[in-house]
């Protein structure tokens, strides 16, 4: 898996999402950083296309949690997608791709291929 430098941490918005282009694919990039304690928080990258609404909007959804799952709620019809597995909680037959993402020296690196995540294991 090759990682690509996509943007810098400054391009992200805390506790919210932005959209980036990775190998011609739209990817929603979220930065979870719920406190000001100085830590860098956690990054998540999933496909930006909302399979329910049929539009490229997931990066503009609200972040949150359902039980112990971290999720983004689609801004169109509010379905929840798990940030770790990409699975839609309302309709488990739907999911969005999940991309490996990491932070290195203030730069955000994203894998060019989505990863296969086992919904049950994660």
């Amino acid at each position, binding site marked *: 898996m090759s990682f690509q430098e996509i943007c810098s941490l400054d391009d992200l918005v805390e506790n919210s999402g932005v959209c980036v282009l990775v190998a011609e694919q739209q990817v929603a990039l979220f930065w979870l950083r719920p406190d000001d304690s100085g830590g860098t928080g956690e990054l998540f990258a999933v496909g930006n296309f909302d399979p329910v609404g*049929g539009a490229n909007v997931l990066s*503009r959804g609200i972040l949150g949690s359902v039980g112990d799952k971290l999720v983004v709620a689609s801004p169109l019809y509010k379905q929840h997608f798990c940030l770790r597995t990409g699975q839609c909680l309302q309709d488990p037959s739907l999911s969005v791709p999940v991309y490996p993402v990491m932070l290195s020296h203030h730069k955000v690196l994203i894998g060019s291929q989505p990863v296969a995540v086992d919904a049950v294991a994660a």
Partner: protein
Amino acid sequence: MQQTFQDTVKAQILVIGNGMVGHHFIEQLRQRDAGCSVTVLCGEPQLAYDRVYLSSYFTGTPFSELLMSTEQWYQEQQVDLQLNCWVERIVPTERLVYCRDGRVFSYEKLVLATGSYPFVPPIPGNDQPHCLVYRTLQDLQNIEASAAQSKVGVVIGGGLLGLEAANALKQLGLETHVVEFAPQLMAVQLDQAGGALLAQKIQQLGVTVHTGKATQAIAPGTQYRYQLQFADGSRLETDLVLFSAGIRPYDQLGRSSGLVVGERGGIVINDLCQTSDPSIYAIGECALWQQKIFGLVAPGYQMARVVADRLVNQQQATLTFSGADMSTKLKLLGVEVGSIGDTHARTPGAMSYLFTDPKAGHYKKLVVSPNGKKLLGAVLVGDTSGYDTLLQYALNEMPLPANPEQLILPASGQTALPALVLPDSATICSCHNVAKGDIVGAIGAGVCDLASIKHCTKAATGCGGCSALLKSVVDEELKARGVEVSNHLCEHFAYSRQELLHLIQVEGLTTFYQILSQHGKGHGCEICKPTIGSLLASVYNEYVLKKPHVGLQDTNDTFLANMQKDGSYSIVPRIAGGEITADKLIVIGQVAKDFNLYCKITGGQRIDLFGARLEQLPQIWRLLVDAGFETGHAYGKSLRTVKSCVGSTWCRYGVQDSVGQAIAIENRYKGLRAPHKIKMAVSGCTRECAEAQSKDIGIIATERGWNLYVCGNGGMRPRHADLFATDLDTNTLISYIDRILMFYIKTADRLTRTSVWLEKLDGGLAYLQDVVINDSLGIAAELEAQMQRLAGTYACEWKATLDDPQALKRFRHFVNSDKADSNILFVEERAQIRPATAEEKQQFQLQIPVKNLTEESIA
């Protein structure tokens, strides 16, 4: 591809038809047994979809939401699913099934779930184009296409489905007629008086009803496409004819293979849903049980359960089909109708109680047993609030109270039957056959919230008609167990909206994560984040895109525009009171032209520009702000518009300057954040051209000042506003509005309009008047001061955003590329843009990869 006999696909269980019932059968089968091999042959090109909600396709529900399952699910369940596979013939002696495409399947057990098809009466001319039926997705697409070329539409058939079809035609913008052969509408479900009232109400809603009309021919029309010629010599012209004259079971397969079928159609089944060949079962609308076809989904589901049980458990199977209740409650063209049991009082010796309220348009009838002890049937038109209670009396044969008429008399305070007194055997959800005992059992097993109860019992996940009853059973059961029924905002906060407001004020909390870490758990969600964002805004009135608040807002609030279905946004500049200069109109027009936006006059007296991409929003608003426009807050839970009529300045009847007043009020309250949106209007005289009595705050000019109306609502549940105070001078008027709105903001639940808030407020209107006019709580001065402070700190959010480079950074589709979203594509319609449909997008993308159709025009 022709296959030979050797290729025969062998299945232990073969199902023909993948409608709602066929699909339910597969679910039920797999719940009981994962092993046996199953093949499904389905004539339609797609998987089972929710026919019951089919009409919602016309109100914008995407078809994908109507699907009941996915191909993937069928794969996971290891069910061999063949779509587009029409079965021609069954040979029971060889246990073989032949398909139109030449394939052959063998079975051990065969389940027929072929449903039914619309009956088209043999009227000459019934086979012309634009003569349609209403049953499948394909039918709906045909209707849509035909309606686009039509002005007038006629539905032939005034039964339940016919009226639903009429509603669809009306929604498609056609002048709509219903033609019924019988002397009344819904002859199956309603008695004559109920049908007559229904017809009257539907007429008032703009659908013309013709009863007692036998259509004899569909001839060419003079003014419109066709002319319907009736037996009595009268005529009706129309462009589109929609037949809804009943259904006929798809029983040809049974007929041709020698199974016993009923005289008037339907494959005969016994209580085990077995046909005359014991290896073949029939379920759903193709089956005839005791001379009856059941045209509803719940009985079909029951049959599916019976057969699944039988095939899996064989000799140990216990379920049998014993008929089904055909009672219905629904809203037809906006009119509530309920029908239970013996509506025509055909039971010998039955007695009827009648109640009519001609003013409100209510008709209610009870049919009781000769001894007056049991409820046999009921008809409700105009008001079905008593339906659940009556149905429970009828289904459970519970003894009626001594004065049964109480059950239909208005406001006797007695009508609702507490869910607690229902027996455990009472059916709460007939779609999924869930009894009260099942729900109590689930609660006993520790399932404590409505959503989980729905999930584990499936109650209220079919037609949805039982949701209210389910909720009251759950609430009462929880209360009886001493569990406090929760008004918690969501899973992250065990507080109501008001309680959170108090915490914020008392502890001086200023950010979401402060509040979450001290009073909540988890990471928040799309419910608590915007709610707390709104509370913080109404307490501190800070710029909503300020850093700590950014992630709290819905996309509409984040980007200060309304997201549309394709991910583009709309733009609504404030046009206070609906007054606008020619110069400003030109600016709007020019901006729309430059950016190729779709223009529409809204229902709120202003102009909406659609089709802006995220990255265009700041450029567009720069031009608008420079020309003196401010944001219209069309996205916020905040003041929308103050509608005005032209008033005394121009109008010969006007008694005050309603436009001036509307503008002043709109400017005072613009930007105010509240539990829900707020709408207002000012009329210049009692003729009320601004429709103030349908607004949250309505003002009507009088000779001596202003009458103030409060808590009206249009929308989903219209409510006429209440007269609050009369002949006020402007200062008093404003101070009353200040107090009412601030009191509303402080005490209403999230997403509660003023109408619902007032209805829930203990003491109602009189209490509100006491608080606001007599200052009974001693808070009037404080409420006014708070409103004054908010008004004083108003700033246009778009102006602030344009001045803030950090905030502007968010208005890029990609943070690492200047490209535009290639999935936003427009086509032209009526000389403006509209979003391309999924099919159109596919075509474009094949032709011009990654290109916005309007990109050039903007550059």
